[in-house]
């Protein structure tokens, strides 16, 4: 009886976030097991150029607007800087496949949990969107293609539309519940101009609009 509360709570929590219904996607055709994704830095000549986004971050109803600047240094090293309005710097960090290095952070952000979350999000946009992936499964349908990649205890799902543009990247946990969804839209010249990054376990989202020089 004393476990009833625990079990009930667990069931309730488990039902709060939606399970990603990968199995419901039609399995009309299986393709190769690798998938190459290259969202922004599409060629070697474009490497080491920076990409700037107008960023609107909402955390528990509070907004922080600014500019996110990303620079590719190599396939496994990216730099990221976030500036608030008035060009006040919030953080500088280097993103690597399994870690990150913070070079500057304002005092209020300088907490390991916060910087780790920001680094994970940026890693997904940079390294996570510029690599050859070994997929556990790739399925095709008339509406597009979905690749399932194992990631730690969960999965990442890369979803392409019929025109081969990536619409969504979904990261799930060990129960295949959504942790994070990144939605890519407003494609021009094969590059998404709007990106919405939404966390499902806490109220945080980052809305990015590509800045044109």
């Amino acid at each position, binding site marked *: 009886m004393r476990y009833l509360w625990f079990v009930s709570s667990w069931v309730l929590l488990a039902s709060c976030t939606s399970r990603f219904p990968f199995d419901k996607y039609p399995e009309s055709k299986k393709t190769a097991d690798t998938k190459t994704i290259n969202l922004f830095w599409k060629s070697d000549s474009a490497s080491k150029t920076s990409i700037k986004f107008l960023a609107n971050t909402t955390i528990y109803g509070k907004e922080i*607007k600014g500019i996110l600047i990303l*620079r590719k240094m190599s396939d496994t090293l990216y730099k990221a800087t976030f500036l608030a*309005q008035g*060009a006040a710097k919030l953080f500088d960090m280097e993103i690597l496949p399994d870690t990150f290095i913070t070079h500057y952070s*304002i005092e209020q952000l300088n907490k390991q949990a916060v910087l780790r979350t920001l680094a994970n999000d940026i890693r997904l946009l940079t390294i996570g969107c510029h690599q050859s992936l070994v997929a556990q499964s790739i399925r095709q349908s008339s509406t597009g293609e979905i690749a399932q990649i194992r990631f730690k205890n969960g999965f990442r799902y890369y979803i392409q539309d019929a025109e081969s543009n990536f619409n969504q990247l979904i990261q799930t946990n060990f129960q295949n519940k959504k942790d994070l969804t990144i939605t890519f839209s407003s494609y021009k010249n094969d590059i998404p101009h709007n990106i919405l990054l939404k966390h499902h376990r*806490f109220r945080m989202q980052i809305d990015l609009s590509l800045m044109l020089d």
Partner: protein
Amino acid sequence: MQIDRFEDFLIKQNMSTLLKTNLMKAIYILTISLFSFLTSIAQVADFDPIKDLNGFKKLIKTKHANTKTIKSDFTQEKSLSFMDDKLLSKGIMKIKHEMKVRIEYTSPFAYLIVINGENLWIKDGKKVTKINTGAGNPFSKINNVLLNTLQGNFENIKGFDASYLENKKQYLLELTPTETDTKKLFKKIAVYLNHETLEIMRMDMLEKSGDITKMVFTNTELNTPIADEVFVVR
């Protein structure tokens, strides 16, 4: 206490404090830029100490006693040392005696800062934040800088050591932070004034992170009428 989870941090952390601190930093940068109009200085090779410093200070004081309003376009170039990159912003700055300042970014953001006496407004889109900058508030120090600059009382500017330089074309006011809170933001601020007109031409801010923010002022107009309503945000 160790905070391991991001959501725990968010609940424990007062996000408004974060926002206000960064707004303060941005406003600090902008406020210091107001020196620009009224004073100014980075040690540059062809600059020498001002020979007649008292005369210069008297000139500045007279100039600004006769200046009721100032309007100028500005271009802000931020050089990011870490990224080896630059970011350009543009806007319009308006100043009116007594203690009325409007700094309006037009690109890449529409973003507005208005100071009117002890009130400070920040407008970001439709969202307006009002802050009282009375005694005890961190913004009161900014107001102090602003007030003394407007009045030409450079000796009363707190938190910086000032040195005064000149060449044939420009005056240069070089400000070095002396207090902990200003040292957190800047290594040095340099304001360049036109030698003839005493109007601000450029201001460089060397930040602690190694970044450099340069503000160049153009189309400066003095004593053109500016309505009081411009310095109120609703």
